[in-house]
């Protein structure tokens, strides 16, 4: 007769990814780097937002980008025009970045540059509103983008992404006059599940809201004195 036994495991299914994420974060902390994980559906405007961000903050902050893309380096090439290190990670068939892939990016950062020089690493995740929400990569904060063309209901349909976000950018605001969309409805839908998220409506095209985004971004970087020393000296001008 078979005798059956039970072994209690009580292990999180994602524990290996979580351990990797904690490991990455420890590296970021040791290097004095703030890491943001930027997520959205494909085409919401992550790359153009990063282009504007690099153009505006490149002089003030030392920034590197980890660029997740399923098969191409098209986005990475766009960002390289801004003379910042862009580490491209092709995820292949995988629809999200995981902590191991980002660890590979950190290895490159460590061996090709001096990581302690950097203030900020922006991780552009693969365009997808589902999986990236479950896979932490070692970030200090999560930024979600939702373009107004995607519809008011998306926060209700993809709740985990919007519930996890620390900052939500509602993008393509310049299109608002041409659409039948209630931006307040989007905001109310997000607030239902995430009352404390910072919400910033932006248009990368016409510049609306970008100052608020840059302010939020800089507020995430704890070493204020480190940055202050890098600001252009206005008094001597």
């Amino acid at each position, binding site marked *: 007769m078979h*005798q059956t036994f*039970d*072994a209690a495991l009580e292990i999180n299914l*994602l524990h*290996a990814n979580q351990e990797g994420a904690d490991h990455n974060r420890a590296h970021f902390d040791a290097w004095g780097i703030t890491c943001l994980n930027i997520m959205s559906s494909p085409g919401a405007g992550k790359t153009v937002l990063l282009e504007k961000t690099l153009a505006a903050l490149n002089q003030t902050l030392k920034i590197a980008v980890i660029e997740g893309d399923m098969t191409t380096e098209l986005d990475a090439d766009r960002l390289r025009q801004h003379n910042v290190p862009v580490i491209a990670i092709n995820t292949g*068939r995988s629809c999200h970045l995981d902590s191991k892939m980002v660890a590979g990016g950190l290895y490159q950062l460590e061996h090709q540059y001096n990581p302690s020089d950097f203030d900020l690493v922006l991780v552009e995740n693969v365009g997808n509103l589902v999986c990236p929400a*479950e896979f932490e990569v070692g970030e200090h904060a999560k930024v979600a983008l939702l373009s107004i063309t995607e519809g008011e209901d998306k926060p209700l349909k993809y*709740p*985990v992404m919007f519930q996890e976000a620390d900052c939500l950018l509602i993008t393509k605001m310049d299109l608002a006059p041409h659409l039948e969309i209630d931006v307040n409805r989007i905001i109310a839908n997000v607030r*239902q599940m995430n009352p404390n998220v910072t919400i910033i409506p932006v248009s990368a095209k016409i510049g609306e809201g970008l100052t608020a985004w840059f302010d939020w971004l800089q507020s995430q970087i704890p070493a204020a004195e480190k940055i202050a020393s890098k600001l252009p000296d206005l008094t001597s001008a």
Partner: protein
Amino acid sequence: MHETDMTKALILTVQNWWEAQPERPKISQVHLTVGQFTCVEPVSLQFAFEVQTRNTFLEAAKLVIQETPLVAFCHHCQQEYRPEIGVQYACPECRSPMEDIRSGRELKINRIEYCSDSAESYASNL
């Protein structure tokens, strides 16, 4: 698609446990808890498990998934409620936002059920 990766992680975890057992027992069931407020689809997980365990030590093992509902606690009303995923997350009574999730985010390997081979051979010798 990410269920494939999660299944890989699941199999590795179970394998680590199995290899640490001196008698390498035959695993009959692997029990998971999957919350409804996660990005994981149990049907996809089942399918991935079936495919990925073929011709492995887990070939005969059954994946048993227990789903847990999304339950939130409203601090204003001092009671639990069940948000309607895709429709309404705020408290149905007072419309306070969903802040305190009590269940539904679980992704856990609970336990393994196994038959001891040594016990089996001992029994067959009787």
